[in-house]
């Protein structure tokens, strides 16, 4: 990746964080930790990897995103708003009565959201079905599935992985947000998951592990998946829950947090400083 492009994607990731934070602040609290940890991957996906048309969100040949950890909706909404799928100002309707931006992703409400999620695990099978359907239709596109590491507790995830590799869904790319924490604390305290790479390989996935805060590494891992083939792909994103905001990273239980005016000001200032340093 060229330096300029790398800079642009990093800036996009910071803007996603700032926009998501603005949305969450407008309603007072939200799933800050898991929004921040997945922002870099979303920036790479929507910044360079995915074929999408903001003016035609239902274009059948697009690449699809299934945010199975549906509580990261605000990160998706921030990304889509910045891409022009809907007006930026609409982010402030998050979770308001009648909104098109509910806390969990909803394919019938938000332009650009491809699947309805929120009950953890369910996005994985839906993504496998989308990938199978696209393959049967002869479409030349990919389905990107984002799964939380805690979400991987759900048996349904493993049923869908078994299915995806058995059906040779080389058009499916699973990104695991390995941020080490779920709702009640660290995975290692709640239900240790062991080695995700070994598990995904055992389930028949072409698997790599990358630094999930390094856009260049994520981009390289995603480029590999352009080749398709007989095996579905897994990318284990080694991330930090709350990544990008020091104070959030340091709060052990950062799954869902109130975002007060003071926090919003401080956290936005931190992100803005990083953006300024990047763009000069």
């Amino acid at each position, binding site marked *: 990746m060229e330096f300029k492009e790398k800079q642009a994607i990093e800036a996009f990731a910071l803007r996603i964080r700032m926009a998501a934070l603005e949305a969450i602040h407008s*309603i007072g*609290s939200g799933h800050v930790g898991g929004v921040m940890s997945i922002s870099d991957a979303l920036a790479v996906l929507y910044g360079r990897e995915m074929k999408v048309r903001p003016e035609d969100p239902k274009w059948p040949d697009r690449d699809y995103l299934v945010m199975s950890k*549906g509580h990261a909706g605000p990160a998706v909404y921030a990304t889509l708003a910045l891409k022009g799928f809907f007006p930026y100002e609409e982010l402030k309707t998050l*979770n*308001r*009565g*009648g*909104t098109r931006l*509910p*806390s*969990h992703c*909803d394919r019938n409400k938000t332009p650009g959201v491809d699947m*309805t*999620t*929120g*009950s*953890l*695990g369910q996005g994985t099978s839906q993504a496998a079905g989308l990938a199978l359907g696209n393959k049967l239709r002869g479409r030349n596109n990919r389905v990107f599935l984002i799964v939380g590491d*805690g*979400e991987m*507790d*759900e*048996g349904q995830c493993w049923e869908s992985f078994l299915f995806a590799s058995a059906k040779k869904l080389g058009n499916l790319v699973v990104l695991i947000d390995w941020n080490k924490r*779920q*709702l*009640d*604390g660290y995975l290692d*305290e*709640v*239900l240790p998951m062991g080695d995700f790479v070994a598990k995904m390989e055992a389930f028949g996935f072409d698997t790599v592990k990358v630094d999930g805060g390094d856009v260049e590494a994520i981009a390289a891992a995603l480029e590999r998946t352009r080749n398709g083939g007989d095996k579905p792909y897994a990318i284990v994103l080694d991330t930090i829950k709350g990544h990008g905001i020091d104070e959030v990273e340091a709060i052990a*239980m950062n*799954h869902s947090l109130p975002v007060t005016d003071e926090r919003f000001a401080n956290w936005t200032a931190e992100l803005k400083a990083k953006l300024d340093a990047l763009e000069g």
Partner: protein
Amino acid sequence: MTKIVYNGETDPRLCKDVIGATVASLADGDPDVIFLDADLMSCSGTLKWSKTHADRAIDCGIAEANMAGVAAGLAAAGFKPIIHSFGTFASRRIYDQIFLSGGYAKNDITVIGTDPGVTATMNGGTHMPFEDVALYNALPHATVIDASDPTCLESVLRQCVNRPGIKYIRVGRKQYAKIYEDGSELPIGKAVTLREGKDVVIFAAGIMLHEAMKAAASLEAQGVSAAVVDCFTIKPIDADAVEAWAKKCGAVVVAENANRHGGLYDTILEVLAERCPVPAAVVAVEDEFGEVGTQGYLQERFGLTAAHIEEQVKSVLARK
């Protein structure tokens, strides 16, 4: 002893704290009581206690169906499992496991489903159970409770642990209008009259009790005498109380924070049809999916307010 102290004020306790304290005290008093959660101990008020009671508080991770099956196995091993998740997952997500490994196999389990109906607020439509009551109503011999307030919650939870079958308690995590004096006993299966009346009876449960009491007060000012009866036990319904009140008033309104199909309304209509057919009407969710918003917004959106109850009372009185 059951003492009603309703005056419209809010009980200061959070229901999640009541769950946490009651579970801890039950486990203290009975070595067979064991608690399981699915990565939501922070939400059931049990997380802190779990850290010092690792053998009695089992975090199963985000794997509700497995949790239900494990609970069945623990029951077979002689334990009295209490399991918790949000109401959607504690009903739909585990239904086959709780039905077969639990109910059918006679492994007794207490299930707590938090954030019923519109109390799921900010978690939105995917987390908003309007159907949990119907699902558990359809499970043979199950006990189905829509807790009225923190006191009721504590009382029923204590009874459920030693009650056979599958017991499902739905309750919000936050605050409720205070209805019963602290420490009151609410025997499962017994409806409680919160307010006497003669023109119409409102059968209600859960958060709808507060709305029903507000409606009854407003109706009184308009010359309509409305009784309010707490049907926190939806199954087994207190059929004698339903019949007696229906006979006395000759008109019935049911108010529930759930889909109108398969819940308290249907349960009461069955009693009326078989024992005492009188005009009836309902205030419930009109066969819709949930959505996101504040509880106030959602109660308006789905018609779960005192004003809607008043409206239905008037419509049913016109048919009397």
